[in-house]
């Protein structure tokens, strides 16, 4: 029998003597690595991932599992925390980015994990690692959106749709009968303006925002 007078502290509780003989090690999985977790933690929105205690409240209330098979925020977080990057890429890369940002997970999380932003950070991480082999719709939309905000200050709905379709090689679809008749109705009723509102002195703000991005 091992020496049983050493002190041992678990979760702030000091255990002495025989107790530690039958208190098993709290390493749940032998394959845990923390590099992946640390990378995600550094991304915008990823900061709170380590607070998760895997209760599953997020997945229980999530909008998507009913519509998207195997979509599971708790599961994505678990894979990151255990360092299972390869498994995430092979089995889940097409799922993570599908989050629709309804925020029910973040709202209900009992531990204060910003789950929606964590899932978004995981998707971003995969995109940054180029695991999709092409520009995804998600990245394309973020790019055209941020370009327009930074350059013009505001979003023009028609321009954003046009730029998104152009970037993803689908410009032809905008010329379909349905889209054109919708556009015509919007235009004739005055809901599409050819020269959207300009913001005075936006150039200066735009310049400053660009500096921030460098």
């Amino acid at each position, binding site marked *: 029998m091992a020496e049983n007078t050493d002190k041992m502290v678990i979760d702030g509780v000091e255990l002495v003597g025989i107790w530690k003989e039958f208190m098993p090690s709290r390493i749940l999985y032998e394959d845990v690595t923390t590099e992946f977790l640390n990378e995600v933690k550094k991304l915008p929105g990823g900061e709170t991932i380590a607070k998760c205690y895997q209760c599953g409240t997020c997945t229980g209330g999530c909008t998507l599992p009913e519509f998207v098979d195997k979509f599971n925020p708790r599961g994505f977080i678990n894979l990151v925390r255990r360092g299972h990057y390869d498994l995430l890429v092979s089995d889940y890369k097409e799922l993570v980015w*599908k989050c629709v940002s309804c*925020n029910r997970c973040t709202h209900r999380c009992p531990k204060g994990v910003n789950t929606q932003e964590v899932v978004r950070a995981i998707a971003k991480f995969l995109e940054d690692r180029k695991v999709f082999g092409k520009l995804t719709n998600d990245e394309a939309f973020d790019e055209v959106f941020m370009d327009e*905000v930074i350059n013009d200050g505001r979003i*023009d709905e028609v321009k954003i749709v046009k730029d998104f379709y152009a970037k993803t090689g689908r410009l032809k679809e905008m010329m379909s009968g349905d889209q054109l008749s919708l556009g015509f109705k919007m235009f004739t009723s005055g809901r599409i303006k050819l020269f959207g509102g300009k913001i005075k002195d936006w150039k200066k*703000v735009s310049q400053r925002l660009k500096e921030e991005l460098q």
Partner: protein
Amino acid sequence: MKLGYFPGCSLKGMARAYDESTKIVAEGFGIELMEVDDFNCCGALEAKGSNEKLSYMLPARVMDSAKGRFHVDAVVTPCNGCYHSLLRANAAMNEDSAAKSDVISFLKDVGYGTYEGDIDVRHFLELFYNEVGPEKVKNAVKKSLKGLKVASYYGCLYERPKTITKTGYKSKRDDSENPYFQDELLAATGAEVVKFEAAASCCGGAHALQDESLAATLSAAVLSAAKKAGADILALPCPLCGAALDIKQPEIVKAHGNDAKIPVVYFTQLIGLAMGKSAKDLKLTDPISNPMEILKSKGLV
């Protein structure tokens, strides 16, 4: 209380009906809105995934402009998305001193530099409920909407997530799991508000372009739940949900059938109608989903 009004990009484009009906309703009940007409985009969900600092700076510039120009106590917006961005920036400035000093130095460079995370952010629905309320609406009804069955839809970011909606907030908030402010306001017009299970479900609008078929499926689930609940019309407080559920409705119906076909309007349009305002002023002919037909058949326009 001095209020800055931040309409957001959508209300100056395709959701102009929401902008104009909000102003009509506010004026009718004596709420003075000072429009922050040099506003910029709040950054929506895209900025917060792209660059943390920008996702605070963009909303902060709007609030800085409202405070610097008009010395307001609060900024009010009718858009769930803008509301989320503004609250989120406010929360960051109150909880993260590094973010706060970054934002303040940005505002000093490009704006008034007066905003320090210290003004209230309010959603027009919440503001209207708290400052006016169902009783006053009831007393102001000139044309009762009796006979009209309404599904009252809230969308996502109006009351979620609590981590930011509760930050530094002074007014009474809606119930986050079972919101009812809009239900009570609409009931005050004489309309019958139906029991509607999808009231705070997600319309999928955030992915309307990136993932069209999933977005259409989510929207169809909301629209058909409203129809199944017996509603004649669906009313909502968000221009992004409006785009997803109204402008995209022809495509949704094509893919999911007529169960998803139901007129969609902004709640302010129905309140304005009960106040006796004209369909023309309230832009009730704007929605693609054609609310005029049902309103005509009920003798309301």
